[in-house]
């Protein structure tokens, strides 16, 4: 069974046997932009994902402004 990665409402499937980092790069997600939860625990990028595992990805990037970056006073 493939590994499932869930980011917000998107689901991705990848082959088992790769590190989390490789999985993220494979689905086009920057490792710096997410945290990964497996079985309720946060995991690091070198963890090798096994058949049927489901990893929840938490997006960490926030913020929005268009111009005039910074404060005036």
């Amino acid at each position, binding site marked *: 069974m493939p590994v499932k990665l869930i980011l917000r409402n998107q689901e991705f499937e990848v082959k088992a046997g790769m590190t989390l980092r490789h999985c993220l790069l494979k689905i086009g997600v*920057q*490792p*710096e*932009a*997410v*945290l990964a*939860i497996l079985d309720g*625990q*946060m*995991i*690091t*990028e*070198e963890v090798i994902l096994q058949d049927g595992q489901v990893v929840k990805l*938490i*997006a*960490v*990037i*926030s*913020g*929005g*402004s*268009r*111009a*005039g*970056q*910074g*404060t*005036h*006073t």
Partner: protein
Amino acid sequence: MKCRRCSEKAVINMRQHKLALCKVHFLDWIPEQAERFIKKYRMFGHADRVLVAVSGGKDSLSLWDVLWRLGYPADGLYIDLGIDGGLAYSAKSQRLAEKFAAERGLRLHVVSILQEYGETIPEMAERTWRGHTKPCSVCGLAKRHVMNQVARQGDYTVLVTGHNLDDEAAVLFSNTLNWLPGYLLRQWPVLEANRPGLVRKAKPLCRLYEREMAAYALLSGIEYEYDECPHATGSNTIFYKELLNRLEAERPGAKLGFYLSFLQAKQNGLFAADADPGVQALHTCPRCGQPTSAPGECAFCRMVKPADQANSR
């Protein structure tokens, strides 16, 4: 991968620091680092009255939690911007800020833009030239005005915000791309109250990665607003953060190096003090009493409706 400080399994690997930590030691590490930066940049002390601007997001709530754990007397300020976007965004953010404060017995000031000025931020943006196609500029101006006002009225000696390293690096990147000397001159972990009417501002998280702060919030069990502001889609800030993260993926530590090198260069005199073409004499706004470079009322007071119209809704 094992925790650097014990033999437990690591929950986070911070390649930029070549440091992996377990949950317990990571939750110790973040406050240690924040305290280190508070002292290094002389941001504030335990005798200061600290006001934390909280949005209900991970950074500001984590910052408030860290300050609480470090024993700093910090009250919070939540500004209800009136943003819905189909998500009840502001309402949900406020609820999370209030819940956080209640759980810890902390004081939270709440200011409603609608109640104070008769319009929500999106309505103000639509009415004024400043809003153009998105309310971000209006939002930023309003927040800075209200934060300074509440801090002054409450006799707080320092206002702190949850800007993290990714925020600072993205701003620096943008200001450098466009060579904006005024903004580059003013970017620093602390903004001194060097004009009458201004409150000192500090960013204790400025050297901590956004990912580290998200991990802190999750591991601490802090419930925060996970949804992005509905108006943030397509924002420059997020675009620049993504670009910098691509660099970081190839060169761990690049974001931190970029920011720290800039701070060092500034200290070494990279920017001449008169490089800012916008430095002008400031005077006091006749309506709100805050400093302004424009003649007459400040930009915020010119933007909001007159008081009699604001109260008519």
